[in-house]
């Protein structure tokens, strides 16, 4: 059984009279335990919407989303999930350790574990030297790293990352990549969204390509490449999206 699954998940944003913007349209997605799954797509393709629906930040128009078989409003399930939002903003009046401490307390971790884990995580994201700095003074890369640490504070079984490498320099990107692979080895399931193709290419076991709220393709990279006769991920990406756009324009051409 898939650890993360969506069934006909649909999200429409209603703007005024009869004007509907499709955020996500009938998406069926299954993520198996222990894999790194990448959601790919251009900006505004529904990647973030999908993640938000899974986590109960948004509510679906129809269809359902489940993590570990539980609906997004399930408290018990969230105990095992870590989430890194896109462009994370945190309580900028707290220091890094205080922020981690606060989130740890929300997960009801005991004091000993908390202390140990904060040390480990700060070590891991290399923010040990910035212990006394409030987040207001952090650089964008540092914020991204403390965000990653915060999403790992509960030692989650499932990690959901929205654009985890946007603010990072090449070295930071590489470190994050290595970290993800290491987490995978520990048996974690990772769902990430990105529009950085190279990053996805190197870490993901399977990918899904989103465009305009539609799920265009899912599968392993090799499988998809073969299916679409593409040479690499970039080629695949362009091909699927172009095919979709052409079909869409043909369709609208027919109806009008």
């Amino acid at each position, binding site marked *: 059984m898939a650890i993360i699954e969506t069934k006909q998940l649909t999200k429409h944003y209603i703007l005024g009279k009869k004007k509907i913007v499709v955020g996500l349209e009938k998406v069926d997605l299954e993520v198996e335990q222990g894999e790194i799954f990448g959601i790919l797509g251009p900006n505004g393709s529904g990647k973030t919407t999908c993640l938000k629906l899974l986590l109960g930040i948004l*509510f679906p128009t129809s269809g359902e989303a489940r993590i570990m078989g539980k609906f997004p409003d399930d408290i018990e399930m969230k105990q095992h999930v870590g989430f890194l939002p896109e462009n994370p903003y945190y309580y900028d009046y707290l220091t890094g350790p205080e922020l981690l401490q606060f989130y740890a307390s929300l997960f009801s971790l005991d004091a000993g574990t908390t202390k140990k884990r904060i040390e480990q995580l700060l070590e891991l994201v290399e923010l040990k030297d910035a212990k006394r700095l409030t987040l207001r003074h952090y650089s964008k890369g540092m914020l991204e790293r403390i965000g990653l640490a915060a999403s790992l504070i509960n030692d989650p079984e499932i990690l959901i990352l929205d654009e985890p490498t946007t603010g990072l320099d090449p070295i930071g990107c590489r470190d994050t990549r290595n970290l993800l692979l290491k987490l995978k080895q520990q048996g974690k399931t990772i769902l990430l969204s990105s529009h950085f193709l190279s990053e996805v290419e190197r870490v993901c076991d399977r990918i899904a390509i989103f465009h305009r709220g539609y799920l265009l393709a899912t599968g392993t990279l090799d499988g998809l490449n073969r299916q679409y006769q593409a040479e690499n991920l970039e080629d695949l990406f362009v091909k699927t999206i172009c095919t979709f756009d052409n079909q869409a324009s043909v369709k609208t051409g027919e109806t009008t």
Partner: protein
Amino acid sequence: MKRKKGYRYFLAIVFCFICIHLVQVQIDYRKKLENLESALVLMPGQMAGSLILGGFKGLAADLLWLQMETYWHSGQHYKILPLLQAISWLQPSYILVWTIGGWHMAYNIYAEVKTPEEKQFWYQQGIQFLKKGLAYPFNANKYDIYFELGWTYYHKGKDYPNAVKYLEKATKYPHPDYVDDVLAHAYEKNGQIDKAIKQWEYVRDNYVAFYDIAVRMINDLKTKGKATP
């Protein structure tokens, strides 16, 4: 996905509001009992003040105006004066403040005071208050205050030259018919018989309601040289 327990909150809110209503009734009762609300009624300035701070000058003036009405109907004419001053300060463009204020002084308080000196004093106060209103450009472009001044001079002060002066000004701006009528009377009293006849002719030709009286007045003026009793 269950997230439809909204109606429960709604019921709770309605229930709380019912309770609140009952509590408020008690509070209002106790306010009366312990004389807590009277302060508000006696000191409209307290609320008016908070409104000025909030930039709601007009609203503040309205509150004072309502207060003034209360005083007016209870015959406490003297108490109206400070309110009038305050309102005219808050909202000088509220033209009724000036006309009614002038009228209060020159007529109502005039009628209340006993000695001739006092009467003269309040008449002057009324005139001055009206003139102060004219100092604001937006009031100087309307007939209201000119007419009130002219009428006060004419009727109360028997000061016909001044009456003519202000009534003439009043007719320069859009005005109701009785302004022309009063002006005609004022011309006559001021000894300007020719102008009075002309004015009556104007009234006769323009206002149906005044037709009969205008015809009679012109006739009287031409035959007796005097028409207004």
